[in-house]
């Protein structure tokens, strides 16, 4: 382990999430263990029936209807997750220095949903731009989802989003950790969110790339990561926001600790707009472990990015085999078979799904891989049913995105010194 004092050791003390198959960590974890899918058939504007993942959390549990109307789906997901995370961490913002709370949310994109809808409405109004909503700009500025959290919770510390394509969720966590280590804030609400399936453009874009799954008749089997008969990505929404704080602060207030973030890394492929780069993925995992002061033999679970595309699955499988091929105790799983690709939320959400492993010592399975692609053969991959092991101490979470953005976060079971 790297040599850090308690002020620099960052721990997770609260988790709020919504996924297509669960609206809190317990529901989500149970669904992952039970192989419960959250995918469904949906009608996509201009495109017809597609498969997607939608969340069914109560939008007005923490938000007024008017605020929901003013804001965005991404903001609503963020508000729900942030409130749930604070409650889970046993924190009440009213008792905290609101200026010392930061909100850092990873996103894949933002503004597509609102812009598409407005243009659609504009066409219903004979292209009269005087009917364009005055809410367009506040809804589409890039900080909008994080800003909605601060409006909702009256947080006056810093807020912004981190645009990281599908690596965004991990990057939100990394940003929160860094701001805590710099002493900029006392608490970070950090993670990732996505509203992507609300926009047809994302579906059409993946379709144009030949990367969109086509199986609305059997939505729950639409996305098949690592399967030789995979047909592509299923787009989902979701969110996961963590309460992060220093170990010293957590101990001082007697907080429950889910785990400690001991390593992370982010790098760039610098090779292609959309195709992944195995060497840079290897480098990202190795540098994250180096930062944590551990090696591949210390990792108990690797959660793959595994989107269900040929290029992505094969590149990552090669990278994992290179890094963990000789690591006997490392188990490998993936999450998108259950929930689809939750884009900016994926990194944070998928990490959350594996964190209960520190308490139940189960590796949740990846589902929908029935005939593994020979190029994706990975020893110790966990498919279909959970695997019980003696003890799980360290989880490594991969999240990669377009333009060649890679991110890795490593979380360790917390044990008192």
């Amino acid at each position, binding site marked *: 382990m790297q040599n850090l004092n308690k002020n620099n050791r960052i721990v997770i003390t609260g988790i709020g999430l919504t996924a297509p198959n669960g609206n809190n960590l317990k529901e989500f974890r149970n669904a992952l263990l039970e192989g419960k899918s959250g995918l469904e058939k949906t009608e996509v504007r201009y495109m017809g029936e597609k498969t997607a993942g939608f969340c069914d959390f109560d939008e007005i549990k923490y938000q007024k*209807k008017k605020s929901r*109307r003013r804001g965005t789906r991404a903001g609503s997901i963020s508000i729900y997750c942030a409130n749930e995370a604070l409650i889970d961490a046993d924190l009440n913002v009213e008792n905290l220095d609101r200026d010392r709370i930061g909100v850092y949310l990873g996103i894949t994109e933002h503004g597509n949903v609102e812009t598409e809808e407005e243009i659609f409405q504009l066409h219903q109004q004979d292209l009269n731009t005087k009917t364009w909503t005055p809410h367009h700009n506040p809804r589409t500025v890039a900080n909008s989802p994080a800003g909605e959290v601060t409006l909702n919770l009256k947080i006056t510390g810093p807020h912004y989003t981190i645009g990281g394509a599908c690596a965004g969720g991990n990057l939100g966590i990394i940003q929160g950790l860094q701001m805590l280590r710099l002493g900029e804030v006392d608490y970070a609400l950090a993670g990732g969110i996505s509203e992507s399936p609300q926009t047809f453009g994302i579906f059409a874009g993946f379709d144009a790339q030949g990367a969109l799954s086509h199986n609305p008749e059997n939505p729950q089997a639409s996305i098949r990561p690592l399967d030789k008969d995979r047909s592509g990505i299923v787009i989902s929404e979701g969110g996961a926001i963590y309460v992060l704080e220093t170990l010293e602060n957590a101990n001082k207030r007697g907080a429950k600790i889910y785990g400690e973030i001991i390593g992370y890394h982010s790098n760039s492929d610098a090779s292609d707009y959309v195709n992944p780069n195995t060497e840079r993925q290897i480098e990202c995992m190795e540098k994250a472990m180096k930062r944590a002061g551990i090696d591949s033999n210390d990792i108990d679970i690797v959660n793959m990015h595994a989107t269900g595309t040929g290029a992505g699955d094969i590149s990552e499988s090669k990278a994992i085999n290179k890094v963990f091929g000789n690591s006997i105790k490392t188990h490998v799983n993936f999450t998108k078979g259950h929930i689809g690709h939750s884009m900016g939320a994926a990194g944070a959400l998928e990490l959350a799904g594996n964190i209960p492993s520190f308490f139940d010592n189960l590796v949740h399975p990846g589902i929908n891989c029935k005939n593994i692609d020979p190029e994706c053969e990975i020893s110790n991959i966990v498919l279909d049913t959970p695997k019980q092991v003696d003890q799980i101490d360290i989880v490594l979470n991969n999240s990669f995105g377009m333009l060649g953005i890679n991110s890795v976060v490593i979380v360790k079971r917390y044990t008192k010194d």
Partner: protein
Amino acid sequence: MTMTDVKNVIINIIKDIAPDEDVSTLDENVSLREQIDLDSMDFLDIVMELRKRHKIEVPQEDYPKLATLKSCVDYLFPKFSVS
């Protein structure tokens, strides 16, 4: 369209813009902002919905005429009559 119809049009717009509010007990002679949670952006939305749904324009200098339900009806009734 009668004055009652115009009043109902306005109430229905306010219902959509301020969905948390009870608009069934509005006093038509008292400022809307004193009775329900409406801010300047909400009034922009009311103007926008009048434009989109009924092709009625409310110039900025006339916004104060939307202060109460009664002033809204008095101001908008002639516009509905010619629209």
